[in-house]
């Protein structure tokens, strides 16, 4: 199923780039229900729908809606399903998308549920790795905040399907949760943990960097020390494999030196673009326009 979505995304890439015109989803309406701020997810879903000839409706501001009057999510979904052919939901509570699907007769796509999952991000991360490197047996390092970052949690499980070798690089305060490590080991995935980026940089095909949030550290000096120790610089990359690709879900603050943007290793802006063909594939498949 995952491979089918990735293959479909690749076929739709010329449309995502505006090189071909499509009316695949003409007459279809996508409802974006975003209860939390979002830039890339919301905009790439909008772009995906418009590129395929469909239309997009928005919830607008939560403060000016019926939700502010105390309406339940279940009731909002029951109403909105009458207006749209599919719903994308971002909500602060874990499990919200699954619950919404119980009340909806139209497909609900999880656009991020609290600290839970962000599956379309995972699909676009997999797509990026397959387009820019290779998925089967890839050597991947995940660096940064591995404790709270939901993108790396979901990505780990997805990578386990492709027999990846995963190295977790983080300060001890932000280690990957133990239950995820034990799940991966149970799945026979090779997992290493370290706090040194220098140790692994010469031995990986993909380096996936996540943002370390300042508020996770009570002491600003400690934050600065940790953030600096994991910063990706051109000097660090002198020891990298030539084919190394660097990914980041964005926004980045200072974890990747801007000089890295001009090296062949940087692929985070293309990664962001890949969100469009991947979401086009998902929309086409859930709306039954493609099989």
């Amino acid at each position: 199923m995952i491979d089918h979505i990735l293959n479909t995304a690749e076929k739709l890439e010329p449309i995502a780039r505006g090189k071909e015109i499509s009316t695949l989803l003409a007459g279809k309406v996508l409802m974006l229900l975003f209860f939390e701020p979002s830039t890339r997810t919301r905009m790439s879903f909008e772009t995906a729908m418009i590129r395929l000839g469909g239309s997009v409706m928005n919830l607008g501001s939560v403060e000016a809606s019926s939700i502010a009057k105390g309406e339940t999510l279940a009731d909002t979904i029951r109403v909105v399903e009458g207006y749209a052919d599919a719903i994308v939901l971002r909500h602060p509570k874990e499990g919200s998308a699954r619950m919404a699907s119980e009340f909806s007769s139209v497909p609900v796509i999880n656009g991020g549920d609290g600290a839970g999952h962000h599956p379309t991000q995972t699909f676009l991360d997999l797509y990026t790795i397959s387009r820019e490197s290779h998925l089967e047996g890839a050597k991947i390092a995940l660096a940064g905040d591995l404790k709270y970052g939901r993108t790396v949690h979901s990505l780990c499980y997805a990578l386990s399907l492709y027999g990846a070798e995963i190295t977790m690089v983080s300060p001890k305060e932000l280690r990957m949760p133990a239950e995820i490590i034990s799940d991966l080991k149970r799945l026979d995935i090779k997992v290493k943990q370290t706090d040194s980026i220098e140790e692994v940089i010469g031995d990986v095909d993909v380096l996936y960097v996540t943002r370390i949030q300042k508020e996770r550290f009570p002491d600003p000096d400690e934050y600065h020390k940790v953030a600096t120790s994991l910063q990706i610089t051109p000097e660090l990359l002198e020891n990298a494999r030539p084919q190394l690709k660097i990914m980041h879900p964005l926004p980045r603050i200072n974890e990747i030196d801007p000089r890295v943007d001009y090296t062949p290793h940087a692929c985070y802006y293309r990664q962001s673009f890949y969100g469009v063909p991947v979401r086009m594939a998902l929309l086409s498949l859930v709306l039954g326009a493609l099989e």
Partner: protein
Amino acid sequence: MTENTAAKHELRVRPIENGTVIDHISAGQALNVLKILEIPGSSEGVVSVVMNAAGAHGKKDVVKIEGRELNVREVDRISLIAPNATINIIRNFKVLQKKKVHIPEYIEGVVRCMNPNCISNTMEPVNSKFDVTSEKDRILLRCKYCERVISENIAEHLL
């Protein structure tokens, strides 16, 4: 010591005439079984509790309830905290039926998710839902909504 006095010393809990004996409860869980059955509020008859009794596989608890038989929902809830328990239905001092509790594969509205940010812990019109699995004598409950797993102190999360 007379024979009669010795018998008195041996008799810790008397047999019941009609009702239910819940045997092989994991040691230390008897009071949680009473909580599940809402005893004493829900029963008129005498209830006896034995804790830390010697069993074939180590220590166990036993609960005897006069004049009451359990429904399926109650047995399902007991199975979560005492997966090896047996339910004995007693009529006229005899065991009419004896069966092991069955651990359900799925439970709804029985346990509260331990994740305070789970959608099932809000005002939404849904029951909590869990998939139930067991691993080395431990019961694992995975929330159908947020996927958080409860593996310890399940009794504390019972609704």
